[in-house]
């Protein structure tokens, strides 16, 4: 009868079922990988898990560089249209012009992404969030702040937009400071919101903190005094380096001009160089104590040995060595105190040809030091021409070599530590330094004592004195090299010293470049800066006064 219809239906039904079953098997077995991959590609994403960059602290735990999250606030004009009052509220919080903002949002309503404000402060973020607006989103970013700003800019350095160190210790210790972003696999919906974390591939690794040897208070004082001196002398630039006499840790390192590492908008370039370590100068008379040291070490000279300097000039081959006036016959100590070129030249020529050079190299002058900052200059000091008396003479009073303020610090550290050479470092040291004896202790002490006369009333730098304390040091004034040899109008004023003389706690080098005006010498320009900074530093460090008070 109609049985065939029944069977037809059955056959078609089972046929369809079988067909579907085959298809299912086919999809599941043969195309499974492809389909799974396509599905995942549309919904599963690997997301970075942010990690903080390490904090940089000074030696007392004051933060010098801190990463903090900031929020970028954005909206999707194609998805929501913010009404007029909402736009006005947003504009007030974010300090934007409401009319411009309104126009911007309306002008291209098909845009899917519009930054209301990048890197908004936390306060702005919280205020905007409190409005509870639909269609306003937040995106977390990190920003690095430098609380001490331009005071520590050269030492600390700065990072770029991708959180990589560009300058200073941010660059040299980038690997340690940098956080390692973690990765996780997440499931996202069509709008790109994370629904669920599926798997952690790598945990985020936070950057390690870094403790510098810098003392922020000393850094502040040094920077302020340097700025004041440079402004008063209309100088072009200047540097101060200060180091602990017992450990070789750098306590302060400042330069002018400096820059503000917090200000992204200002184009960098001006004032970025850390002149204290990158620039080399002829150190001039600040080298004389080393010549005196070589003289004392030879056993042929004593502090009281008399040297005739009349008539105030002295010819060495083609070189005319001159004092500003005829000082007659003076002792070695007075020669150092008054910075007599003639006396020092005569002493140097009496010594072994390599004597002064050997002292300088033993102490570490003219070498790469590796303090932990980028761009360190090696300086130039070589033993070519030491057989020539002219070369020996100029070396004895600090010409014919070029060294950075950092080298000079290293040199005076040898005096201050009683004849030790230890590595200068920008990192706080956990224990005593690796020190090596390079000068006999008694000789180092003797030169320190002789240098004390420099800051006496009759010396070249009475301005470097600190009431209540004994201060040793040496001035230096050198001419800069211009297009036609030495330029008589451009000078470098230096002062290198240590305090207190009886038991030195720190060494400090002050360099001021191209001071203008009547006085351009190291004693008049840099000496008083040393005195100001040392005075505050001694009291901050709690050093007991070692001089009898004159009442």
């Amino acid at each position, binding site marked *: 009868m109609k049985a065939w219809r029944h069977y037809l239906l059955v056959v078609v039904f089972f046929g369809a079922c079988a067909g579907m079953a085959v298809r299912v098997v086919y999809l599941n077995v043969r195309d499974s990988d492809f389909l799974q991959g396509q599905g995942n590609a549309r919904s599963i994403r690997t997301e970075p898990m*942010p990690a*903080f960059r390490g904090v940089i602290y000074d030696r007392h735990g*004051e*933060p010098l560089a*801190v*990463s*903090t999250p900031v929020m970028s606030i954005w909206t999707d004009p194609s998805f929501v249209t913010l009404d007029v009052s909402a736009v006005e509220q947003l504009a007030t919080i974010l300090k934007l012009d409401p009319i411009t903002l309104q126009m911007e949002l309306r002008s291209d309503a098909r845009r899917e992404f519009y930054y209301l404000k990048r890197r908004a402060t936390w306060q702005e973020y919280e205020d905007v969030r409190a409005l509870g607006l639909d269609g306003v989103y937040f995106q977390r970013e990190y920003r690095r702040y430098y*609380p001490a700003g331009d005071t520590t800019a050269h030492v600390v350095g700065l990072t770029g937009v991708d959180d990589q160190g560009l300058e200073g210790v941010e660059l040299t210790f980038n690997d340690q400071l940098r956080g390692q972003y973690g990765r996780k696999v997440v499931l996202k919906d069509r709008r790109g919101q994370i629904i669920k974390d599926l798997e952690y591939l790598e945990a985020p690794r936070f950057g390690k903190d870094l403790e510098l040897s810098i003392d922020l208070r000393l850094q502040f004082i040094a920077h302020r005094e340097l700025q004041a001196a440079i402004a008063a002398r209309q100088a072009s630039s200047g540097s101060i380096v200060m180091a602990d006499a017992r450990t070789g840790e750098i306590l302060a390192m400042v330069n002018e001009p400096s820059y503000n590492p917090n200000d992204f908008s200002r184009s960098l370039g001006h004032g970025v160089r850390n002149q204290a370590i990158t620039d080399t100068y002829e150190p001039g008379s600040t080298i004389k104590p080393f010549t005196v040291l070589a003289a004392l070490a030879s056993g042929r000279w004593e502090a009281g040995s008399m040297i005739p300097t009349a008539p105030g000039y002295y010819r060495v081959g083609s070189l005319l060595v001159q004092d500003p006036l005829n000082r007659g016959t003076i002792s070695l100590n007075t020669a150092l105190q008054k910075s007599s070129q003639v006396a020092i030249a005569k002493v140097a020529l009496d010594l072994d040809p390599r004597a002064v050079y050997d002292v300088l190299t033993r102490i570490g002058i003219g070498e790469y030091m590796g303090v932990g900052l980028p761009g360190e200059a090696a300086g130039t000091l070589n033993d070519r021409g030491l057989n020539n008396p002219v070369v020996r003479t100029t070396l004895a009073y600090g010409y014919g070599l070029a060294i950075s303020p950092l080298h000079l610090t290293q040199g005076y550290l040898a005096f201050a530590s009683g004849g030790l050479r230890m590595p200068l470092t920008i990192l706080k040291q956990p224990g005593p330094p690796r020190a090596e004896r390079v000068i006999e202790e008694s000789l180092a002490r003797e030169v320190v004592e002789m240098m004390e006369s420099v800051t006496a009333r009759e010396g070249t730098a009475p301005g470097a004195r600190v*009431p209540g304390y004994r201060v040793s040091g040496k001035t230096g004034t050198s001419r800069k090299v211009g297009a036609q040899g030495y330029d008589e109008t451009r000078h470098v004023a230096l002062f290198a010293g240590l305090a207190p003389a009886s038991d030195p706690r720190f060494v400090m080098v002050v360099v001021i470049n191209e001071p203008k005006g009547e006085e351009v010498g190291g004693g008049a320009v840099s000496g008083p800066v040393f005195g100001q900074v040392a005075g505050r530093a001694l009291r901050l460090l709690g050093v007991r006064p070692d001089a009898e008070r004159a009442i």
Partner: protein
Amino acid sequence: MKGAQSWFILALLVVVVASGVQVALKSHEVRRLHAELQAAQRTQDELLAEYSRLLLERSTQAAFHNVERIAETELSMQFPDAVERLEP
């Protein structure tokens, strides 16, 4: 012989059911711990963010310039010209 076999099958059945229940329990626990981890990570994140903000605020308040200014203007303190020493 027949009896031993059916006992064995019954025992297997019990083990299978038990392990099935365990799988369900464990996957529930994984989900719970996962949520806990996420919450902990969020808290850590927030605390670190707050710590960094407080650190910055402290260093601004305690900045050398600031302390000196307050000492000199508000508390009318001054820096001694010479070292004064009090002996006990």
